[in-house]
């Protein structure tokens, strides 16, 4: 009886290990196939490996694919690391070498990371503060994009009419709720700025995790919220209204790739800079809005969108 069990146990052990081996085999095949696709791009060993991360929303995914695919087309080895969460997390990640390339908004660097005391007066000033900040951490900033994507104080157009407001300053004395990503609470470009610069007092902050601001506005879960100027919804003026930011707390938010200075060495570094700047120069507001719309409305993937845009502009 015991013997028989023993033999069965041995068989069992074999079957289990066989099953596990099979599982690992299948998985390995799966990943091998995947790396095979990346391997098709010709890789030159002297070129530095790029570990590309993004923040966690649609526009960043698209930007990541745009820079990443353009670099791959020039023979760089790019590993897409997925999203790194908020700017603060991305900043920590790149300073600790967990990635060496990510697209960031200049105003976010200047105001939220560098914590500039007074909001910069122009896009240029914003860029130079941002560049100084990154340089102090062994990083650098390539050229900014022509488009800028700033936060916008967005509400349903119906609500704006009802309250009779056109600018953020008009909200003074009115109680309202404001939906935004959690980090908004402590940011000068967000709730903190409304309080200290616009002196709005009756704000109820509604932190959102992964849910879109527009969903919350549509469902009347918030009076207003933090939209982005490149969101396709911002084009639907009959439905959504962005209040004018008369005191410029939202700042100047052009995008520029943040990268490790180590990537700039030699001829490969020059090629990298040239490639990224060529991509950035094509990213106008109209281009970015079209790409965001393709993502949000037509459900194209960031990868497809970037591929289409780069090919159309001879960058791939």
């Amino acid at each position, binding site marked *: 009886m015991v013997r028989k*069990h023993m033999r069965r146990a041995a068989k069992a052990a074999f*079957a289990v290990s066989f099953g596990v081996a099979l599982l690992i085999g299948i*998985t390995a095949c799966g990943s091998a196939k995947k790396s095979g696709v990346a391997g098709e791009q010709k890789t030159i060993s002297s070129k530095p490996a790029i570990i590309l991360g993004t923040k966690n929303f649609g526009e960043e995914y698209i930007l990541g694919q745009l820079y990443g695919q353009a670099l791959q087309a020039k023979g760089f080895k790019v590993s897409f690391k997925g*999203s*790194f969460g908020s700017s603060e997390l991305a900043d920590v990640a790149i300073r600790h070498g967990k990635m060496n390339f990510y697209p960031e908004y200049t105003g976010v660097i200047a105001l939220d990371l560098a914590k500039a005391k007074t909001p910069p007066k122009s896009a240029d000033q914003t860029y130079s503060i941002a560049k100084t900040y990154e340089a102090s951490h062994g990083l650098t900033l390539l050229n900014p994009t022509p488009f800028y994507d700033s936060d916008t104080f967005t509400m349903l157009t119906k609500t704006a009419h009802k309250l009779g407001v056109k600018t953020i300053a008009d909200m003074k004395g009115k109680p309202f709720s404001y939906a935004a990503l959690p980090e908004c609470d402590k940011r000068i470009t967000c709730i903190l700025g409304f309080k200290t610069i616009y002196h709005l007092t009756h704000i109820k902050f509604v932190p959102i995790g992964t849910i879109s601001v527009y969903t919350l506005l549509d469902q009347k879960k918030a009076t207003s919220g933090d939209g982005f100027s490149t969101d396709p919804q911002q084009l639907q003026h009959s439905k959504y209204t962005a209040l004018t930011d008369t005191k410029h707390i939202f700042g100047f938010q052009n995008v520029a790739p943040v990268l490790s200075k180590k990537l700039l060495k030699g001829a490969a570094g020059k090629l990298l800079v040239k490639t990224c700047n060529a991509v950035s120069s094509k990213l106008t507001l109209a*281009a970015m809005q*079209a790409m965001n719309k393709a993502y949000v409305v037509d459900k194209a993937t960031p990868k497809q969108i970037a591929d289409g845009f780069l090919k159309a*502009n001879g960058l791939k």
Partner: protein
Amino acid sequence: MTGPRLAAGGPVIPNFGHGTACLRHNHWFCPSWVREHWGDILQPALLQHLELTAIAVGIGFGIAFLLALVGFRWRFADPPLGAVTDLLYTIPSLALFQLLVPVTGLTVTTIEVALVSYTLFVLYRNIVAGLRAVPAEVLEAARGMGLTRAQTFLRVELPLAAPAILAGVRVATVSTISIATVAALVISYGLGAPIFEALQQPDIFRTELLSAGALAILLALAADTVLALLQRTLTPWSRL
């Protein structure tokens, strides 16, 4: 802006193509999207998920087995070990994945460490309980046959505890598949990644949410069935 910007002609904005009416209206389920993105989104995510689970349960089993040997051999060690695995299980996955990031970085290791620590709860309990449930008479008989302690363990206790142990592996596997979807909040890997991406879209991209969610459920049920069949083949004497 007069800054360091390249002078450039305007960009060519290509036609990105229209999504189907089903997609534009965000219907509950658009089969065409699933067909189109099986290869680039769903299948890779499914394989990643399978990999995450297989590694987590494998390593978790190894650790739980060693711990269970300790808890089984020295009874006084059982309550504290049990309590530790209990405690690990109560840490919300949402927090654990984040807390591990400074230690293990934004890598698959982070996900695995968290997943492994969750498997210990079920596996440890089941292995110890299975070993303890071996009737005293059987052990007595084994001793009577002149088997050593090690022989008794390998030839008697372990085979008799196998059904309970495998039941634990089933539960651990199925729950790991479920918990692993949360990892995508921190690191986009596995089936959680398309789920989170779908949740972020305005009005929630339903087709992506449902197809990735359904794949997670199907994967769990398939794994459960495979393990149940395995359990039957391995321990036919305990057929339920």
